[in-house]
């Protein structure tokens, strides 16, 4: 039996979760827009980076991005949450770095329902 209070308590929780989810999506869109601006591009078309995400590319990356990129290399395909668990950094931070790597063309992103998965763009030109 579920008490009336629990039912009433659950509704606001669901609403709050919905709001949080929407904010996260919005945040992600902003991140991508900012990254695109930085790279002087307008759309998130599939771009081919100058080099594929190999060890030499990893070496030349700034430290904070290398950590994220290496985690994706190890996990193969992962959400920002899963990456954050490995790197012990905040989910929002990893989400920003992952989207940055997507804009740079090293990663691809795929949405499955509520979750966004990141994986290596194997079509990158070498």
């Amino acid at each position, binding site marked *: 039996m579920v008490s009336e209070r629990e039912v009433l308590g659950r509704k606001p929780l669901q609403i709050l979760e919905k709001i949080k989810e929407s904010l996260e999506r919005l945040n992600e869109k902003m991140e991508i827009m900012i990254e695109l601006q930085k790279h002087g591009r307008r759309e998130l078309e599939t771009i081919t980076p100058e*080099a*594929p*995400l*190999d*060890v*030499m*590319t*990893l*070496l030349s990356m700034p*430290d904070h991005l*290398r*950590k994220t990129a*290496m985690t994706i*290399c*190890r996990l*193969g395909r992962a959400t920002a949450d899963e990456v954050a668990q490995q790197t012990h950094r905040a989910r929002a931070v990893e989400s920003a770095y992952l989207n940055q790597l997507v804009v740079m063309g090293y990663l691809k992103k795929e949405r499955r329902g509520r979750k966004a998965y990141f994986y*290596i763009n*194997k079509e*990158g*030109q*070498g």
Partner: protein
Amino acid sequence: MGKIVAVHSYKGGTGKTLISTNLAVTLAKHGKKVCLMDLDFRAPSLSTLLNINKVEYWLNDYLNGVCEIDKILIDLGDRISKQGGFFVGLANPSVEAIRDMSSKDRKWEMRALGRLLSLRNSLLNGKNFDYIIFDTSPGLQYSSINAIVSADLVIVATTLDNSDVEGTRRMLRDLYDLFEKKTEIVLNKVMYEDALRSGRDKLQALVKETYEVPLLGVIPCFCDISRAEGKIIFVHEKPQHPFTRILEDMAGKIDKL
């Protein structure tokens, strides 16, 4: 969960193959399920060392995406240790294969890294291996860096030769640090007297100061090793030799890491 250990060095001839082979065999004798892989595609040596003539698939084929990993594993348990398990994956020593491996592009190397990384899933998780040991090429080249990136622990073999010390130091700082790899040093070909107990602390301090990583072990110059001409697996054939005891000590330390 098992571990991937890469044995690497800055210069050639520092004893990578000696250390990786004998370490792998020691671990297998301790009851571990071990796979030794020759990732030195420029100068393959394990097929000769282990005297294996008939090979259907090479590690080259696995990295080329021609076959899956189980096709390349050769079971040498009968020869070494039945209780643990000893398998090898070999690099193709033909000139044609060496040429092919040295002309790969960056996209291929990226895929090769992916295939090395997936060994964690296929062998450590899927087939319950306790250890995968990579014998790598010296210096900074794709195949070795791929191996280092895929490994949980890197053992760097070095001597007290000045250019080796300097190069190793630079390599640890400019490469290993960037990948945040757990690293241990093995000092090889040390003068026998220096490797004895009194000199041991001095060497430990030297390694700590020079490389800023821990010292896993010290191997003195053993004429017996040169005399064996790379025809035997030392720890297997000479269980009473001091070299064997040093390797056992290292294997014990690695197991506790």
